């Protein structure tokens, strides 16, 4: 029978031996401008990356961005162009596989949780190193979490790393084990902690302590001083022109033959002012792929694909859902003619908007197939949830809303006592108020403007007069966030990565800031919202997959029975990429092209 104390002691010896071996795998920090992958020995714990093809070293992949990175500091990355770069430079404990839509190991090779679902233990890879050869250990993980929990800095990722408003507690029993304890259980815990990118303590701790973290790893930092934990390191940054990444010579990811990744010598982000220039650059052969293409351009690209030696990839349903909603917010700060607690839209419209029958009638009046044929150029699909058909795990085919049925809409409206009393084609309510409202959206989206036009025409057919209003996106954000100066508002909601409903708490919870129709409620305004709130708590907390699915279906059905939002079709996605790259596998979930760029390679010409 083994004596526990002895077993522990020998485990410690093994750990120390392995640690020493791991350190031997790390270099002394010399850097090289060229790109040899075998200059430094592989660590004991490599990560074998699953890829369809085995590739060769060399070559580059060039992608366009309509804006450059704002910083190389992953803690401060808030926008897409910055995340696209920092997510290549820094890894998390876990990563999200955009193709399988599953959480996969990264710095943590495995993890487990205690029966209470609150304590998670992550086992780190032995011998992992930063791009300067310094060992990457549990210390760096603790440091990274300490920085994101720094309230004077308050990075946005901090909001995700809380349960019931409480921060996680972290400890490191040894250099390669991290234990994280949360205030409650959380279904997507392993996925979530991957959002904290691991940055080097040995480089950044001094800056953090003197309060200079916000300006660390800024754009002016010399590339060789940006020490990274990911597959890539910063090779060169030309402000406003391009960002160039090169392989991290210490990276622990390998292919099936055990050859260190990434295959490519360079990954380039070319910065252009807009989508039109991006298309021109692609046409001129200056870049290898375009990430964002409008549906009206799909045909154009397809016609040119053969001559231009590129392929237009059909990447399936978008994860962006589109909808409009009616303003049910109440006045929070008093002003002339508005008392606190009064409906923002006034009593008459509030009486219509707050009635689920009215909302359902509106939903039934809209011909979604016409929107697919028109603004989406045939590349669209009907969608009834924030988790579209693009979500492998969370799309629920049985969930539907009130679809096109103009007769049904007229019946519902008649049931509310709405009649055209003066014969002008517009319904009036019982108090003879003409039934009309203004639909707002952002004027820079042609698809949304064209969709609004169709909605106006459809609703006119059932006797509701819609006035359209287009403003710039910032005004629109102010309208739905703070001044509530709108009656109905049309918008889209992109899925977060990972695409899990639990990530959309701000939308579903009645207390959420993006619970658009009635934001930041102290107490749920309706019984349905109260039920959604409690179902969402269960859905987000439980580790039981069956319960999560059951609650998720119920939440969606409740939302659609009440018709809090009027769903509109989503887009089928296509994107063009040049031929000649192996393992390139564009997907609908962002980043659509770069999610597996560590294994993409340039095919040899035969």
């Amino acid at each position, binding site marked *: 029978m083994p004596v526990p104390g002895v077993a522990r002691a020998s485990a410690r010896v093994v750990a120390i031996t392995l640690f020493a071996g791991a350190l031997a795998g790390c270099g002394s920090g010399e850097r090289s401008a060229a790109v040899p992958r075998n200059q430094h020995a592989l660590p004991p714990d490599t990560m074998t990356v699953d890829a369809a093809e085995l590739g060769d070293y060399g070559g580059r992949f*060039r992608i366009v961005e309509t*804006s450059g990175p*704002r*910083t190389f*500091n992953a803690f*401060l990355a*808030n*926008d897409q162009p910055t995340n696209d770069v920092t997510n290549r430079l820094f890894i998390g404990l876990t990563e999200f596989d955009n193709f399988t839509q599953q959480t996969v190991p990264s710095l943590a090779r495995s993890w487990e949780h205690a029966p209470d679902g609150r304590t998670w233990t992550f086992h780190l890879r032995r011998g992992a190193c930063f791009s300067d050869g310094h060992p990457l250990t549990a210390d760096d993980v603790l440091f990274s979490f300490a920085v994101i929990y720094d*309230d*004077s800095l*308050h990075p*946005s990722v*901090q*909001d*995700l790393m809380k349960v019931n408003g409480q921060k996680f507690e972290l400890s490191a029993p040894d250099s390669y084990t991290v234990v994280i304890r949360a205030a409650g259980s959380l279904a997507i815990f392993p996925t979530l902690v991957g959002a904290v990118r691991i940055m080097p303590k040995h480089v950044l701790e001094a800056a953090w302590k003197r309060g200079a973290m*916000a*300006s660390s790893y*800024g*754009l*002016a930092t010399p590339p060789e001083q940006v020490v990274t934990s990911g597959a890539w390191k910063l090779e*060169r940054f*030309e*402000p*406003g*022109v*391009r960002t160039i990444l090169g392989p991290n010579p210490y990276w622990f990811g390998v292919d099936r033959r055990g050859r260190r990744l990434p295959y490519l010598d*360079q990954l*380039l982000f*070319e*910065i*252009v*002012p807009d989508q*039109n*220039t991006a298309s*021109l*650059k692609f*046409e*001129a*052969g*200056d870049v290898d792929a375009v990430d964002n293409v409008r549906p009206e351009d799909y045909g154009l690209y397809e016609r040119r694909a053969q001559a231009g030696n590129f392929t237009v990839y059909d990447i399936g349903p978008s994860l962006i859902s589109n909808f409009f909603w009616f303003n049910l917010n109440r006045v929070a700060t008093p002003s002339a003619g508005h008392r606190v607690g009064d409906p923002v839209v006034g009593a008459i419209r509030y009486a219509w908007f707050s009635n689920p029958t009215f909302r359902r009638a509106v939903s039934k009046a809209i011909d979604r197939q016409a929107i697919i044929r028109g603004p989406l150029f045939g590349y669209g699909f009907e969608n009834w949830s924030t988790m579209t058909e693009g979500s492998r795990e969370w799309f629920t085919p049985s969930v539907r809303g009130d679809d096109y049925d103009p007769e049904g809409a007229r019946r519902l409206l008649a049931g509310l006592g709405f009649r055209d009393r003066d014969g002008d084609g517009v319904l009036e309510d019982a108090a003879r108020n003409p039934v009309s409202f203004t639909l707002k959206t952002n004027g820079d989206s042609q698809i949304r403007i064209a969709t609004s036009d169709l909605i106006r025409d459809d609703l006119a057919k059932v006797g509701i007069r819609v006035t359209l209003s287009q*403003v*710039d*996106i*910032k*005004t629109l*954000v*102010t309208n739905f*966030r703070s001044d509530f100066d709108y009656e109905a508002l049309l*918008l889209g*909601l992109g899925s*977060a990565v990972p695409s899990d409903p639990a*990530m*959309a*708490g*701000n*939308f579903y919870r009645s207390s*959420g*800031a*993006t619970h658009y129709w009635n934001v*930041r409620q102290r107490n749920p305004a309706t019984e349905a919202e109260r039920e959604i709130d409690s179902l969402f708590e269960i859905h987000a907390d439980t580790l039981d997959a069956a319960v999560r699915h059951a609650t998720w279906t119920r939440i969606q059905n409740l939302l659609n029975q009440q018709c809090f939002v009027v769903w509109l079709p989503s887009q089928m996605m296509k994107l063009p990429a040049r031929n000649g790259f192996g393992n390139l596998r564009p997907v609908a979930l962002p980043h659509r092209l770069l999610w597996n760029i560590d294994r993409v390679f340039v095919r040899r010409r035969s």
Partner: protein
Amino acid sequence: MRAFLIRRLLQAIPILLGVTALTFLLLQLAPGDVLSQFSQNPTIAAETLDSMRHRFGLDRPWYVQYLLYLRNVALRLDFGESFTRHQPVFAVIREGLGNTLLLSGAAALITWGLAIPLGAWAAARRGRRVDRLLTALASVGLAVPELLSGLLLLLIAARTGWFPVGGMHEAGWERLGWWARGVDVLRHLALPALVVGLVPLAARMRQMRAQLLDTLHQDYITAARARGLSETRVLFRHALRNALNPMITLFGLTLGALVSGSFVAEVVFSWPGLGRITMEALLAEDRYLVMGAVLMSTVVLTAGNLVADLLLAVAEPRLRDG
């Protein structure tokens, strides 16, 4: 001369104050702020945005923010920090200013290098086919907006491959020799410089033509012709040199537009200059970066006008004393 200079410098102060106050006020009146872009992100809590707003000082009254800004600029030459780039504004602007000056310098070369000989040629051939053709071309150049000509040239570049589609240099540029680097930058510079340079060409050419025609009607030209000098000699030795004098003053005046004249072309051609930085900062409502860029443009404009006045003052002593 010194009094003149001091007077002009003092006059610049209210201009700078007015421009900064107006810019600040307009930014304040614009809907939303630099954090609006994050408001749609369901993973960012409202409290986070509030804490960022506090950190950026955006929760204070606008006049307090403005006075603090003025104090920092005046006393410490501290132009603030860019919210979106986490970098001092001065560093961001310095990085763009050089590129902008390169572009507008090349454009000025095109404008003046073509305007003077073409204007002179048109004047010498007044009323003939060449003159009419140049007048017609100038009118077209004046009528086509910079944006349109820029996009057309980009399209041609993409289809033919003769010129790169925007940007300032190829990837791997830093590994080239100095000669190859120069050629690479020139290839990237050609189209945007052409677009910026062609806009004022028509006006400058017509001015040159008018000046020369004016001079050709002077008595001393008639006298020169009467002396039996050849027409070439009359034109180059006597008329042209005198006609150029007012053009030099005009050149001084255009110095002021060196920074602001290329904004549209920079955006269209992805040229990493001050114009693009300003445009991006405006869209993101990156307040102090916009302020810095506007301030820089104003300083260059004021300085350009000052140089023009100095040139004029050297030529016309009466202005110094007036």
